[in-house]
């Protein structure tokens, strides 16, 4: 029983923390976000480092590592709030890696791993994806609906950009014209990994905004005391820690289970995403309250984190939807459709 990362995993985390801190200084994140654009050099660099293919088979140009390594990267990408089309590409990769046919994998995974033909993925309703991250720069798009997945060539889809409240990432509405090609197998193992990856990103966002809050609460003085000396603030920060660490624990558990204990993955992933979606909003909005007026200004960086956390909370299933899944997997019987 050991929660520690291996030396390799620790190296990945350190590298990611250092590199992303340099590439995505607050000014850089702000500039890209205000323009709602990416810098291709950023993504190219991550691809060269092999991050984009970290969990993809070596035969398809990846590193053949697992979901734990992906989660480590995702947490750091969330911590740095990197505006880079990584998550959606990884999501498409996970879909093809874990639910694609041999043919589908050998056709798409190399481009996803190298970043030369990126993928995007999202949930669909009536065949249409209403909020798919980075669909506008993808070569292949995977849409999930009712426990099935379909693969589309991007040029077979009508892709209408959507400006979400989260300006650190590009989103689009995706209307496939053709039928697309069904994923070969049950997409659940892929969806569970994707949910885990989003939970990891949220963990990083929460960790960062908690640190910003603690830092501010130490410095900011009101009534001749640092506000962090008041329990209204300090206990709020303690509650943030509870949510951050609980989300990290369940997320690492799910990431570990993905390869080491697959029978546990569905429950662990649902718990991780439910916990992360709630924490994402609770921690970032609580951080805004700690910062007071300044945290409500555009000039302060907090809102970029808060808005991405809000969107991440909904991507690939809300807290409520994942809790419902937890109930179903825990002896409470089949789900009752919302609306009774």
């Amino acid at each position, binding site marked *: 029983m050991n929660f520690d990362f291996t030396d390799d995993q620790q190296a990945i985390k350190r590298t990611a923390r250092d590199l992303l801190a340099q590439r995505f200084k607050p000014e850089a994140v702000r500039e890209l976000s205000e323009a709602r654009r990416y810098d291709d050099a950023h993504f190219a660099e991550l691809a060269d480092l092999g991050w984009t293919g970290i969990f993809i088979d070596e035969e398809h140009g990846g590193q053949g590592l697992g979901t734990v390594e992906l989660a480590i990267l995702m947490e750091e990408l969330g911590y740095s709030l990197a505006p880079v089309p990584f998550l959606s590409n990884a999501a498409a990769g996970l879909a093809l890696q874990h639910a694609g046919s041999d043919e589908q994998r050998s056709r798409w995974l190399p481009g996803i791993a190298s970043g030369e033909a990126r993928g995007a993925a999202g949930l669909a309703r009536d065949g249409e994806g209403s*909020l798919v991250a980075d669909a506008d720069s993808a070569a292949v798009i995977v849409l999930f609906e009712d426990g099935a997945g379909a693969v589309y060539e991007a040029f077979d889809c009508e892709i209408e950009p959507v400006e979400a409240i989260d300006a650190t990432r590009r989103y689009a509405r995706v209307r496939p014209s053709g039928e697309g090609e069904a994923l070969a197998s049950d997409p659940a193992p892929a969806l569970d990994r994707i949910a885990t990856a989003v939970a990891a990103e949220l963990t990083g966002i929460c960790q960062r905004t908690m640190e910003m809050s603690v830092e501010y609460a130490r410095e900011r003085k009101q009534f001749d005391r640092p506000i962090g000396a*008041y329990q209204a603030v300090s206990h709020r920060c303690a509650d943030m820690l509870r949510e951050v660490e609980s989300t990290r624990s369940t997320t690492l558990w799910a990431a570990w289970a993905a390869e080491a204990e697959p029978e546990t993955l569905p429950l662990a992933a649902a718990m991780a995403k439910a916990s992360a979606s709630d924490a994402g909003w609770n921690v970032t909005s609580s951080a805004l309250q700690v910062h007071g007026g300044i945290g409500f200004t555009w000039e302060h960086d907090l809102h970029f984190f808060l808005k991405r956390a809000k969107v991440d909370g*909904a991507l690939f299933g809300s807290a409520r939807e994942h809790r419902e899944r937890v109930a179903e997997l825990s002896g409470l019987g089949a789900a009752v459709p919302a*609306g009774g």
Partner: protein
Amino acid sequence: MDLTLSPNEQAFRDELRGWLADNHPGEEPTGDEAGFAFRVEWQKRLHEAGYAGVSWPEQFGGRGATLIEQAIYGEEMARAKAPSSANVLGLVMGGPVVIAHGSEEQKQRYLEPILSAEEIWCQGFSEPDSGSDLASLKTRAVKSNGGWNVTGQKVWTTLAHVSKWCMLVARTDQDAPKHKGLTYFLLDMEQDAVQVRPLHQITGEAEFNELFLEEAYIPDENVLGGVGNGWAVAITTLMHERAGLGAAAAASVKIALGQLIELANERGVAGDPIVRQQIASLLIEVEALRLNAWRGLTAIMKTGVPGPEGSLPKLQWSAVNQGLTELAVAIQGEDGLAKDSEWTYRFLRARANSIEGGTTEILKNIISERVLGLPKLR
């Protein structure tokens, strides 16, 4: 106990309601300048009908409305979705503070242009380092020929860019203890020493401003309530900011809840047991807020002092408004996250509700210390 309106209150409401039906100017045009011009016109019309400064004594051009009538006024304006007055801070704070602390000359000089919206007022209290702790403000005023030179920075000054006058609190005595040594000034905004910079909020809009003062000049006759009395004068202003707002807030939040219920029906989740519980909780909290506000007013009118319930509406309003906008966004799922979706602005704007006009933490301090008599944290 009678929760219906008295004949007089009824008459006041019916007259106002009728007048609004005939005079409502319709939707506010988009664009800051057009919107502002529209609100100036609207205030002029209100003024002509005697509906500007309803709380002001009649001798100063007001209507001398009772607290109940003021609350009715707020409710009716919200019900009719009437635009706000251009000079809202002048009407709600400026006029009352001049009436309470001003000299005869000051009353003659300032009151009428407030009512007519010819001179817009803004408030220069908060500073970057003085949010909740107002008395720690650093902006300093130095005596100089027949007046004062003021240097410092203010923040959250709504309407500063269109204002003629700023209600400014500055430190005139560096050596006096925190709460002493402050003076309340009326600052003429039309001078180069005053720089206004828009302050953008997380919604992307610039509802507020920052104010930079570099030796701005204020003549002695623009001191309000006497040198060194700034704290006392400012407090009365803030009191006026609170009084009667509860009823108006409740009315507008009730309208928002109605829209939320519409949304739930449109989205087909009105039958969802969880959504029903969430909306019911909000409905109950709003009703409690409304009733607490009215109870508070009747207590003041009876005893002169607000009851404990009077300290609650601001707290409740911010919680309800945040809760209902969050729920509205959640109900829309991924659609609710689009930057320009109907509820998104209100959802983001609501985050400030628990900060502006007294943070939730400060309000709970006030309740525990002044209402419950718990010891102050020393």
